[in-house]
């Protein structure tokens, strides 16, 4: 049976991982390549590199990092951040990315999902949505969660999937950073609405939060997190042992 995936997310700015990362075994804690190798060795099932580089000039640093990682890490790599065109897809796929996640770029131009999925296949296009409760409904936010688009989240995700998105990352702004667990209410709604894999993001504070996620929403395919992994609060081998003890299928 297919296993539940555990996905660490690395935010990269100007070629360096941001957010304090602290591992004794790493001499350079902000080197994305070293960190990617560390996570791969510890059993991560996939990695997400999120480019938060502000200036256009420094974009080349990101693709260089990506290529150096893809030369050494042989698990699926997803890239997000600043993807606005098919040319952006091309730029990161050439450097070894396997999947590309679109967010604000797809909100501005939903056809990007269709164009990219036609050119590279549905499996390559990941729709990432930042979602927040506003007045009793789930709304999609853009620009890193700063701007309410007015779009209803489930309708937007269904549209994205019908345009060709092969996976969906559901990032709950309400639970993100709170470390009180994933947004299982929202995730259940998304899983009921679409038939492509759903990746839960936002809210993981401890290993038990992943157990609770899959107990409450077994249809979720993957759990994505950043700081709980970076700060060593959740260690992937121990997390996978815990999931297996709870009857969940994981790769070990």
């Amino acid at each position, binding site marked *: *049976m*297919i*296993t539940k*995936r555990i996905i660490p997310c690395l935010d990269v700015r100007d070629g360096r991982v941001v957010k304090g990362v602290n591992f004794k075994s790493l001499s350079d804690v902000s080197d994305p390549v070293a960190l990617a190798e560390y996570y*791969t060795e510890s059993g991560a*099932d996939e990695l997400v590199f999120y480019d938060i580089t502000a200036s256009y000039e420094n974009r080349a640093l990101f693709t260089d990092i990506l*290529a150096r990682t*893809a*030369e*050494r890490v*042989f*698990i*699926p790599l997803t890239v997000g951040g600043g993807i606005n065109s098919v040319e952006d897809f091309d730029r990161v*796929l*050439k*450097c*070894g990315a*396997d999947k590309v996640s679109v967010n604000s770029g797809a909100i501005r131009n939903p056809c990007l999902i269709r164009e990219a999925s036609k050119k*590279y*296949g*549905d*499996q390559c296009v990941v729709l990432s949505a930042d979602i927040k409760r506003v007045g009793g409904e789930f709304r999609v936010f853009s620009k890193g969660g700063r701007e309410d688009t007015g779009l209803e989240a489930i309708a937007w995700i269904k549209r994205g999937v019908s345009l060709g998105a*092969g*996976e969906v990352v559901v990032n709950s702004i309400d639970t993100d950073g709170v470390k009180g667990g994933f947004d299982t209410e929202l995730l259940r709604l998304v899983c009921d609405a679409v*038939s*492509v*894999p759903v990746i839960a993001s936002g809210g993981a504070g401890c290993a038990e939060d992943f157990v609770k996620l899959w107990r409450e929403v077994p249809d979720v*395919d*993957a759990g994505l997190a950043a700081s709980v992994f970076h700060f060593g609060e959740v260690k992937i081998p121990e997390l996978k042992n815990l999931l297996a003890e709870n009857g969940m299928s994981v*790769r070990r």
Partner: protein
Amino acid sequence: MIAIIDYGVGNLFSLRSSFAAIGESAVVTSDERVIASAERLILPGVGAFGDAAELLHSTGLDEVVKSECEKGKPLMGICLGMQLLFTEGLEYGSHRGLDLIGGVVRPIAERIEPGLKIPHIGWNALEIKRPDPILKYVAGGDCVYFVHSFFADTEPEFISSTAEYGGTLTASVRRDNIWGCQFHPEKSGRVGLNILKAFSEVQA
């Protein structure tokens, strides 16, 4: 030297890197002479069966691959490259494959329980069906990375491993000097690299 056949389909960066990681020299090429001089061939591929089959045909690389295989050169097809080894593919109509292994590539929906997500994406365990040199470093239950919506429906004698996904899906195949993996060994961590290493060790 291993020739990774470039017929304009997909991203070959990871495949080339993975051979480099196991210390094997591999070149990405569409040059008939390079392919002829290689010791082993890799047929990659992502996308749709019909488009890829057409590209292989229009570049003439289908005949090059076939004639090299007839000489006994080891060939491994990966993902869509594996599917192309079969007689026919039923993705958006019916298309002729290379017919190096008898069988038909069908939608996985025909094989699995209804309600499961398609494509079959993620890490799934291999069940070894028969001993095979490319699986010599693999233990039953080892996980590899799959991304596909179609599967090879072929004779049990050609199936070396399978994966369970609400039904049994062909994971790897072999007929004589011709191998195929539905999953991506270049994206399957250490298990995958070991499969590529084992392929680089098979003797023609």
